[in-house]
């Protein structure tokens, strides 16, 4: 078993070394993330910061916010966390797609993937190594985006920073599990970038919905969120890590 | 233009519907059924037509080759 970990370290190490030299994927990912947060922040932030949140404001962008005056968002003076959380997730989804595509594109030049497949390495290990690479890149993205989101949307992380980090970490594992698998499909059959986003978004909807609800409750009522949500996130991670491990071999093509 | 009117009409706040006016809800029921059956049977008829066309095409290819 230690052999597998050393191979994952070697493979992920290679990806991160290339990324450190070219900073190509990371640059794109972080800039796009910030752009999305700022644009959505401009659209949603100001009203939300207004003293009395406008009644009809509930219709935030992504899933998770209920229409009309349904009492979903936290009422009263505390600005509803829904728009900010939704914006954060929109940024992570789109930046994530660029990240998964970029980390797989490295293998496409000069037939590098064939060189990799020639090595006596189990395809599942290749999947896990690429997953680790994507998680590291997304961690860097999160370290940049979270402060920007805090500034623009006035998140109050102080009551439960640990929970926030835990929820995001678990959600990233799930998103990366799906993204790494589908990125392999795209990289080998020359699909356009748009198709990768189309493949990843619907599949990861339950992850985004659950994580958004948990974060809204986290910021809204200042209490740790319900455990049922955690169960769903963990179930999502386990299901898609196993599916990715098994299916990676089928979708790879030298 | 009618399409635009349709969208504008659809987005307008519902007049008496929420109040459960009987005539209005019946129209909605009929609309619902027409949409449901229309799409279902439209697709069914198209599928049968596509099946017949595929059968003919395979038949031609078989004759063409032998």
């Amino acid at each position: 078993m230690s052999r597998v970990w050393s191979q994952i370290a070697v493979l992920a190490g290679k990806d991160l070394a290339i990324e450190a030299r070219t900073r190509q994927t990371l640059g794109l990912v972080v800039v796009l993330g910030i752009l999305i947060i700022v644009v959505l922040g401009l659209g949603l932030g100001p009203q939300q910061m207004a003293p009395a949140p406008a009644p009809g404001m509930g219709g935030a962008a992504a899933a998770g916010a209920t229409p009309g005056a349904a009492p979903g968002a936290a009422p009263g003076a505390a600005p509803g966390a829904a728009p900010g959380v939704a914006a954060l997730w929109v940024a992570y989804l789109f930046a994530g797609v660029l990240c998964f595509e970029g980390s797989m594109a490295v293998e496409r030049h000069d037939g590098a993937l064939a060189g990799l497949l020639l090595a006596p390495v189990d395809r599942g290990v290749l999947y896990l190594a690429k997953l680790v690479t994507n998680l590291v890149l997304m961690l860097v993205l999160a370290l940049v985006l979270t402060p920007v989101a805090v500034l623009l949307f006035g998140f109050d992380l102080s009551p439960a920073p640990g929970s926030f980090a835990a929820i995001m970490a678990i959600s990233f594992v799930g998103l990366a599990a799906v993204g790494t698998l589908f990125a392999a499909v795209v990289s080998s059959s020359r699909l356009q970038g748009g198709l990768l986003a189309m493949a990843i978004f619907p599949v990861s909807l339950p992850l985004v919905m659950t994580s958004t609800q948990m974060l809204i409750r986290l910021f809204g009522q200042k209490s740790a969120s319900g455990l049922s949500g955690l169960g769903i996130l963990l179930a999502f991670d386990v299901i898609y890590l196993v599916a990715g491990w098994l299916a990676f071999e089928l979708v790879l093509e030298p | 233009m009618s399409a635009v009117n349709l969208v504008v009409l659809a987005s307008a706040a519902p007049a008496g519907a929420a109040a459960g006016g009987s005539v209005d809800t019946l129209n909605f029921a009929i609309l619902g059924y027409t949409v449901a059956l229309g799409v279902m049977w439209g697709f069914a008829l198209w599928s049968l037509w596509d099946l017949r066309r595929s059968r003919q095409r395979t038949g031609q290819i078989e004759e063409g080759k032998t």
Partner: protein
Amino acid sequence: MDSTKRLFGVLFWVFTAALFAGAVVLAFAFTPDEATMGAVQKIFYVHLPVAINSFLACFVNFVASLVFLWQRRRTWDDLATAAAQVAVVLLTIVLATGMIWGRSAWGHWWTWSPRLTLSLVLWLLYVVYLVIRPSIPSAQRRAVVAAVYGAVAFLDVPLVYLSTRLMPQDVHPTEVVLAPSMRLTLGLWFLPVTLLTVGLIIVRRRALALQSQTRAVLAAAENDGPVPATIHPTGGVL
């Protein structure tokens, strides 16, 4: 043999059409209007059976995808595609009827009720399935990628259903207490809709099989020898 099969086909469709006609008459003429929502509640008799059958079609796609990955026979790939096409059509109906019903009963087109949200996500998943297929040139590779996607996408169903539980529950209850005659009508409506769904999947699979066979015959014309119609069992694509 072929003519009797064709006759059975015609009988099947005529019988199903008759059942539908009877069910519509039953719903409108012999079932009372619901107290609070009025006549629009009648949409429920078609909405629920179509929703259940759409989940059935998604499940057929899931199983067909898995069996294809195991056996690599093209017939399973055709079945998976047929099931996905039928699923998308049925889910479109579920969403349309759900929205029309919501518009009349509560005044707005969309509510995040668990069943509608699940139907929307499934609709997205299987539209993406149908969009991904033609974008992959090689038939063999398309079948493998589609099968992987079909298997992975269906794993979402339980997760979506659970996560809709977390959504802030809607103000308007969608489930209504049904009078006995209403429950009978609802039960009766399941038969025609299920028959239609099964018939659609069979017809679509047969049409797709014929089309892929035609492509195979044309491709084989270039080789200097015959090629078996199915993909070789060991023909894994790496």
